[in-house]
């Protein structure tokens, strides 16, 4: 304890991570019924966490070596599992991201969730999430990371199923939890294999050993591939990706925080955390690259066929996560992490903007929102356009820089198919995001006859909400300010690429910079132009089909009905999974186990009982009450015994 108080860094870390936990406990136990107090406790704790994270970032930005605090948790002869904090550039960066976005989302929720009866529960779970995510991010060992990974999954389940009276929300929560759990089985198996084979799950050790090839190759490959299953589950890669669109049943701030910026990024974060370990196994990297590419393309196609606002961004998240995984798997550590950072920013922005629209018009359908006059809400509309431009990868927004970085890494691969996949993904991304923008901004016809809305149309200006809900103007500002902040960050973050690179990779930044310079010029410029033209091409196609005056607002997809249906039904993945579940798990395993339970176990016990009763019935013949039979047996036995002894 004294050490805690003496060391400011340790104090900062401990505060940042433990304060939300205390907030959750206090809210759940003591202040369930006091809305104001609960909200202030939660927002207060996350703001202190944010300040601590920023303090750490600033203090340690020039630190040459990672700082590690550990206590032994599980000790045995060959195994050492620790608990503690690891502070190196990556973890501090992620900690700051998580704290910032959690803070902004909690502030936004003050406005969005105002008036909701379960708001204290909501804030308790938000604090739970913040605690779990932050402790996971600074874990020094994989076991701690895994434990808090699961806790993050728990928070996700609780928050997705927040509107617990809705069946669809309950189902979505269960689906999310079970699917991620499925991936986590592989993750845990990988950890166990590694633990038994290597003896240590400390991240720094793993990275060093992986880079120095101290671990036998087969062990490395197997455990890397199994650990990647966790990434598949948590970061919604193929084939465990359909839980994320369903997870949009939760409140929009939850979608913004968990299912766009932070929780689903935990998989990618974990990947980058043990990147040197992974990189030592080319097989695992190849598998990750393939899965990432498939995910990107599949999700982009699915986004093209849906009219639900949040679903588009959900598919977009899956697609961008696949893109990050592609970047990391191709060897671009910095590219992947950079895209993670920028994506957190603009995806949260997009979700929060959508939240404003949903909150205002009580519908998720983009056409209805457009028709009801969505574009009149200036702040969300502008911020959403900014976010969409960043997502599409247009200069000068942050997405442009990070996407370029990843495409650059992909171009370095010998097989150009990955690069083509990435460019196609960029094209589709731009297309579907601007499809959404144009649906909202340029609706086909405005809905007539809704007098209430019409009055608002005319009366609205910049402070639209003010006249609508007069004395609740704090709701407006609570929702508007995070949007503005995030939009600003999206504008600026891209330019910090080099300083971020220097921060994250101090040793190799110089070498990387040199390589970059060498690669600049011909190849790099061509790639730049290709990528930007893909993005602009997507936007133009979207504008042609949806945005210009007199457009039919029907995508080219409409002409291929079967294809559109394929995309809309998520490539039938849900159906396939349902079928597999029914035929393999239920008809197969469950059937076998039920039969085993009924026939073998119950049957065995029943049979045993019946045997006992039956043999009792048979044995009761011995109690015939007939003296002579008893005597007979007695005499015979005595005779036998004597004979036995005599014959010895």
């Amino acid at each position, binding site marked *: 304890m004294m050490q805690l108080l003496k060391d400011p860094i340790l104090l900062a870390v401990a505060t940042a991570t433990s304060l939300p936990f205390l907030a959750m406990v206090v809210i759940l136990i003591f202040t369930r019924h006091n809305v104001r107090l609960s909200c202030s406790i939660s927002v207060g704790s996350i703001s202190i966490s944010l300040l601590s994270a920023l303090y750490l970032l600033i203090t340690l930005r020039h630190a040459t070596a990672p700082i590690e605090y550990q206590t032994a948790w599980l000790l045995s002869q060959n195994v050492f599992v620790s608990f503690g904090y690891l502070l190196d550039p990556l973890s501090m960066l992620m900690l700051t991201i998580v704290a910032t976005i959690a803070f902004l989302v909690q502030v936004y929720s003050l406005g969005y969730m105002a008036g909701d009866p379960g708001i204290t529960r909501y804030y308790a779970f938000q604090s739970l999430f913040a605690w779990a995510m932050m402790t996971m991010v600074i874990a020094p060992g994989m076991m701690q990371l895994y434990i808090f990974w699961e806790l993050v999954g728990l928070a996700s389940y609780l928050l997705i199923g927040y509107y617990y009276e809705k069946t669809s929300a309950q189902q979505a929560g269960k689906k999310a939890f079970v699917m991620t759990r499925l991936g986590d089985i592989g993750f845990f198996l990988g950890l166990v294999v590694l633990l038994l084979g290597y003896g240590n799950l400390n991240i720094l050790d793993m990275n060093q050993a992986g880079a120095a090839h101290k671990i036998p190759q087969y062990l490395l490959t197997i455990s890397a591939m199994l650990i990647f299953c966790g990434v598949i589950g948590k970061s919604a890669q193929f084939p465990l990706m359909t839980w994320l669109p369903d997870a949009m049943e939760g409140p929009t701030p939850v979608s913004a925080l968990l299912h766009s910026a932070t929780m689903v990024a935990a998989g990618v974060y974990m990947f980058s955390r043990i990147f040197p370990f992974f990189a030592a196994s080319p097989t695992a990297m190849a598998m990750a690259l393939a899965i990432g590419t498939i995910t990107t393309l599949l999700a982009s196609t699915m986004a093209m066929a849906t009219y639900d606002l949040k679903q588009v961004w959900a598919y977009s998240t899956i697609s961008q996560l696949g893109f990050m995984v592609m970047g990391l798997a191709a060897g671009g550590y910095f590219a992947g992490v950079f895209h993670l950072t920028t994506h957190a920013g603009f995806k949260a922005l997009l979700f929060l903007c959508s939240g404003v629209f949903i909150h205002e018009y009580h519908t998720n359908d983009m056409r209805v929102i457009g028709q009801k006059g969505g574009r009149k809400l200036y702040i969300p509309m502008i911020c959403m356009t900014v976010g969409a431009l960043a997502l599409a990868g247009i200069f000068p927004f942050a997405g442009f820089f990070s996407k370029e970085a990843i495409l650059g890494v992909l171009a370095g691969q010998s097989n150009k198919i990955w690069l083509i996949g990435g460019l196609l993904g960029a094209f589709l991304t731009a297309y579907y995001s601007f499809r959404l923008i144009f649906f909202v901004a340029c609706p086909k016809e405005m809905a007539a006859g809704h007098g209430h809305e019409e009055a608002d149309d005319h009366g609205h200006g910049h402070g639209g909400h003010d006249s609508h809900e007069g004395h609740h103007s704090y709701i407006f500002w609570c929702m508007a300010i995070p949007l503005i902040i995030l939009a600003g960050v999206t504008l600026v973050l891209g330019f910090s690429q080099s300083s971020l690179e220097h921060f994250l990779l101090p040793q190799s930044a110089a070498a990387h910079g040199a390589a970059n310079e060498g690669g600049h010029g011909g190849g790099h410029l061509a790639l730049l132009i290709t990528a930007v033209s893909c993005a602009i091409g997507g936007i133009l196609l979207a504008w042609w089909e949806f945005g210009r005056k007199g457009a039919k607002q029907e995508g080219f997809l409409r002409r291929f009905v079967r294809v559109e249906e394929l995309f809309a039904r998520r490539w039938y993945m849900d159906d396939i999974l349902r079928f597999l579940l029914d035929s393999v798990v239920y008809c197969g395993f469950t059937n076998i186990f039920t039969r085993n339970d009924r026939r073998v176990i119950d049957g065995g016990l029943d049979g045993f009982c019946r045997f006992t009763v039956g043999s009792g019935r048979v044995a009761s013949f011995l109690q015939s009450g007939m003296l*002579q039979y008893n005597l007979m047996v007695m005499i015979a036995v005595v005779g036998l015994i004597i004979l036995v002894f005599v014959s010895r």
Partner: protein
Amino acid sequence: MNSLSSYLFVAAALFSLGLLGVLQRRNLIGMLISIELMLNGANINFMAFNRFLAPEPAVGQIVTLFVMGIAAAEAAIGLSIILALFRQLRSINIERAQELKG
């Protein structure tokens, strides 16, 4: 051959015949008769050992006399029990007395 073993053989035969009667006869009095045979077989054993092996001949004879006395007492009791049972069961068939049947 008249040695110990022939007397012992006779005793064993008597005893086994008596045993057969006890195990097989349904008549209670028949069982009592068989029991008397068994006792006599045992007595012959004693007398045989007494004649061929024992240091003091008188002791064996005394034991035999005592066994006879006990046999008499037992026969008296047994008969009165049979009588009582006959009055209860109206029969001296042992297979009628199965009230302890499980």
